């Protein structure tokens, strides 16, 4: 049983006078076995939340806490976070020329497990998981993400999640750029992980499309760097019908009110 707790998280991007606050007090708790969907318009800070939890150096944490089973995630290096059980499926996976998928996967598994997996079972596991994601075996000998199509990159991300078996998986717009077949294949991969174990899933998406395949237990509406509404699956249905317009309007009004207030204070 694991729990990822995010409390009053504030994050900026940029340095000094150019620093811009992207996350403005995020509160979220993800427990094993739960699937949370974070939905919001473009530019609301959804991806910033994902990358901040993973530890991307571009983002600066200016306040709040993130803990995994009570351990301070923010004090860990990027690789320590992964070894602690966090996984981020990226929206734009990075090409690594000269490093084959098979070499990469085994190196990652060795790092996560603390010892090299037994060769025979490992090869079998990789084959099985690749077949489950309908990936050609030749894929293993290609260089990581190099020349991959959008769908291949996302399948490769889910393949890693399957093999590395994280406690909490953050899926950042895994549905973007996928055709219907690829979306189904990728979603089935995520669902297998949910059924098999006690993984907590944080599913970040702009659209409700993927939620037809991966049923969330909780839906959080994310606007202007914070969670503005929470509910069950019915909230996703509402967003499908009405979009984010109402939330964005509220948020704008609130932002101008805050700005006016701060101007009064500084004046």
């Amino acid at each position, binding site marked *: 049983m694991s729990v990822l707790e995010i409390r009053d998280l504030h994050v900026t991007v940029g340095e000094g006078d150019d620093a811009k606050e992207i996350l403005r007090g995020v509160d979220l708790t993800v427990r094993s076995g739960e699937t949370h969907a974070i939905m919001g318009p473009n530019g609301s800070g959804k991806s910033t939340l994902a990358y901040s939890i*993973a*530890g*991307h*150096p571009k983002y600066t944490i200016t306040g709040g806490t993130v803990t995994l089973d009570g351990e301070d995630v923010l004090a860990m*290096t*990027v*690789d320590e*976070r*992964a*070894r602690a059980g966090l*996984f*981020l499926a*990226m929206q734009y*996976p*990075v*090409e*690594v*020329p*000269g*490093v*084959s998928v*098979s*070499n*990469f*996967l*085994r*190196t*990652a598994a*060795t*790092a*996560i497990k603390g*010892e*090299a997996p037994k*060769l025979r079972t*490992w*090869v079998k596991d*990789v084959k099985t998981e690749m077949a489950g994601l309908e990936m050609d*075996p*030749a894929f*293993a*000998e*290609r*260089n*990581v993400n*190099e*020349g991959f199509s959008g769908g291949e990159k996302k399948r490769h991300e889910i393949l*890693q999640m399957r093999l*590395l078996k994280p406690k909490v998986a953050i899926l950042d717009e895994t549905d973007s750029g996928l055709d219907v077949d690829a979306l189904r294949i990728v979603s089935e991969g995520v669902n297998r992980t949910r059924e098999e174990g006690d993984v907590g899933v944080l599913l970040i998406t702009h659209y409700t499309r993927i939620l037809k395949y991966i049923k969330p237990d909780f839906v959080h509406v994310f606007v202007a760097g914070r969670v503005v509404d929470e509910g069950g699956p019915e909230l996703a249905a509402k967003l499908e019908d009405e979009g984010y317009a109402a939330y964005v309007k509220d948020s704008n009004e609130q932002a101008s009110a805050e700005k006016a207030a701060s101007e009064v204070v500084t004046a």
Partner: protein
Amino acid sequence: MAASSLPSQPSPPTGTTDLTTQPSTLASELFAPGVGAQAGPPTTPAEGTGTAGQATPGAHSHGGPAPTGSPAERFTSTDPDAFGVPTGREETWRFTPMKRVGLLLNGAASDAHLTWTSDLPEGVELTSVEAGDPLLKGLPEPADRLAALTRQRSGGAAVVRVPQEAQLDRPVVLGLAGTGGDDVVWGQLVIEVGAFAKATVVLDHTGLARYSGGVSVLVGDSAQVTLVSVQDWAPGALHGGQYDAVVGRDATFKQVVVTLGGDLVRLVSNVQYTGPGGTAELFGVYFADETQHQEHRLWVDHAVPNCRSNVLYKGALQGEEARTVWIGDVRIRPTATGTETYELNRNLVLTDGARADSVPNLEIETGEIVGAGHASATGRFDDEQLFYLCSRGIDAETARRLVVRGFFADVVQHIGIDALQDRLMRTIETRLGALPGLEEQEVPA
């Protein structure tokens, strides 16, 4: 020079090779947007051309007045004095540390020699010719003073002969080991491969020496020749050399240069074609540590129709005053219609205090070509790659080694000899530090 042919064991059975790079790497680099086939003088600047660590303005040209000063017509002579004594201001010497190369340039004639070991497949002859032999008169001429001194002082040449139509069952391996000593070793090697023959020749340089050695490869019509030159010298070694390939009609010449050791290595590789349909592939890897100077200069002279050349050199640098220089000159003369050429140089700067210079030059004098292009990029280890690998639990050091290893494997795999590839990758890995827990890395698909 005295070339002794010593019997030695054939190459050990090939182990599993652990090179994971796909041909697609090369293809994707070669056919990236903005580079590649174009008729007439290319107008697309290569991305990221130039120098890391310290800017070299104008280190890039597309024909016209070359700011680097590489002349379209290159002066050659067998007379050292025809070149004058280099000061370090000349185009051909301006990147070279003159004090160190001076130990070669100012070295006296000597009878010092390297220790030779050879593995000669059946049918291959290792012999020698005296100075003044007609074979030597017909070789491409020296292009700088050091090469001319070398030709003069080597007093003849060692000759490797592969008869025409020979199909060798294994590579010709010449181990050239330095034994220390301050005298300059002057050497000249001629590799003569007959028409329709297929041969691989490995020059494996090790030990401590001050060595200036010329290598001329005469590739007969329709022959397929691979020359591998490994510079695995001990610290303190100095190595200068001019490598010439004369590529016959419809012949294929592949050269793989691997420079890892030594204090200073400066190799000048030239290619000329004697008939149409020839192909030259020049591959190189270099890895410079603290204070090492590694300089590779290339000159591909397209003067006959329908020939191809492809150049891929990759280098990594780490440590204070690690220094690499890559000069890639390609000339397409008016007569060389139907030429197809591409050259690519990539440098990976791993630490502060290192400097890589990269200067591609392409001179095109006919519009009737299939394609001509070049690219050069010098950069640091990519932060996004690092983040991606670390986000999978891989620590930063291992991630760095993984990427650099892949960077080198991309070129080393072109050698085509598993045992040698494995040895070189092990040497590179030792330099990078060991990859923990990855002994059984290869995962069969």
